[in-house]
């Protein structure tokens, strides 16, 4: 997910490899990516409240602290600090070049700079109701994108009469759903019309992938 889409006091919802994730940013800027499930009764944390310091579950009001996800308050037993074993299931998270990277197992670091240090314009991410392999093949076919690894492709595009790089990053939400993230370098002059241009282009990729 793009960092700037984590609005203040908002809890975003995403999915990675079939695992639903609640994403939220504390007022101090700390980014949290947690299993989207309250450890108490299994309710989705993404319908909870981001208080700026902690996430308050909608169901029974249990509160989980930004950072380690430790339960700090149980309304039904307000006088005691809950035991340390009570915590939201947290994932490793890193922020790089405007994107939030989440690793479900262990502290995988995000890839070293995808933009090669150049500033880029992040485009609107495009959800596709199709598996990642199929979406990858569609991008190769439809945009002449060249795979860098299993998840990243780069397409050469013409921008303001010069060559530009379109970096495409695939988020396998589940076996049947893929989110295409995209970024363009260098940053074009006419930002908004370029955003619209690629939103339409990726929508065509989506329609092609979903039709097959």
């Amino acid at each position, binding site marked *: 997910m793009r960092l700037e889409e984590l609005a203040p*006091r*908002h809890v*975003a919802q995403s999915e990675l490899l079939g695992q639903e994730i609640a994403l939220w940013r504390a007022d101090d800027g700390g980014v949290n990516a947690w299993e989207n499930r309250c450890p108490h009764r299994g309710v989705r944390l993404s319908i909870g409240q981001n208080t700026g310091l902690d996430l308050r579950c909608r169901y029974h009001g249990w509160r989980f602290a930004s950072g380690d996800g430790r339960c700090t308050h149980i309304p039904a037993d307000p006088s005691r600090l809950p035991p340390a074993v009570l915590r939201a299931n947290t994932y490793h998270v890193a922020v790089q070049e405007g994107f939030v990277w989440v690793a479900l197992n262990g502290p995988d670091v995000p890839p070293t700079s995808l933009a090669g240090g150049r500033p880029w314009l992040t485009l*609107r991410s495009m959800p596709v109701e199709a598996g990642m392999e199929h979406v990858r093949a569609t991008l190769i076919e439809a945009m002449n994108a060249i795979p860098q690894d299993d998840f990243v492709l780069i397409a050469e595009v013409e921008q303001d009469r010069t060559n530009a790089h379109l970096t495409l990053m695939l988020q396998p939400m589940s076996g049947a759903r893929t989110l295409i993230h995209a970024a363009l370098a260098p940053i074009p002059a006419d930002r*908004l019309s370029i955003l619209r241009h690629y*939103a339409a282009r990726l929508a065509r990729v989506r329609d092609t992938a979903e039709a097959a």
Partner: protein
Amino acid sequence: MTSGDALTLHHDDHGEDGYKVRLLLAFLEIPHRRQQLDIYPGQDHRSDAFMALNPLGSRPVLVGDDFVLRDSHAILQYLAAGHDSAGLWSPRTPALEMARIAMWLGFARELTTAVSAARRHDTLLETSLDAGAARADAHRLLRVLDEHLWFAEQEDQAWLCAQDHPTIADIACFAPTILCEEGGVSRLTYPAIRRWLDRFKRLPRFTAMAGVFGA
């Protein structure tokens, strides 16, 4: 102003359309009475008394001293025109903005039809409804809404139409969108919609209903 009118809202507590009108009545703090209909199992909307008010049997219906109004969007327009002295909820100028509000009201009508069918199938067990087709239609519309709201954010616009205040178009789209998951329509792939829902819920005098939580 029509503030001297004694208004009565005939509604049920389950439908998206009654919720739209209750939201605006609360936002504008309009005094009114409520007549709640028991749809299931009571079938009040098929009673002679209600059919005399609205032969279509649809809810809500707004009854004033000397008028009867059906169709939630017509009621929103009436209330916004007569009870909103600041003219923020349904501005008549510029012309293009007025037309865009009408356009999104039309969109909201389609979305409400789709979401309502999916919800009634899942929660009222109206199994004759084609829930699969209704969900597919809801997703087709929500994709358009999410893209529109994402680009609105890019231009620092918080609401559906280019106003710094929400309009009746936001209300009309909010109700089916906040209730869609009850019909098995997930909002997982609509992050801009989820942020807009949060903004809407934080408006002063926002009212919830069964299945809707505050922000």
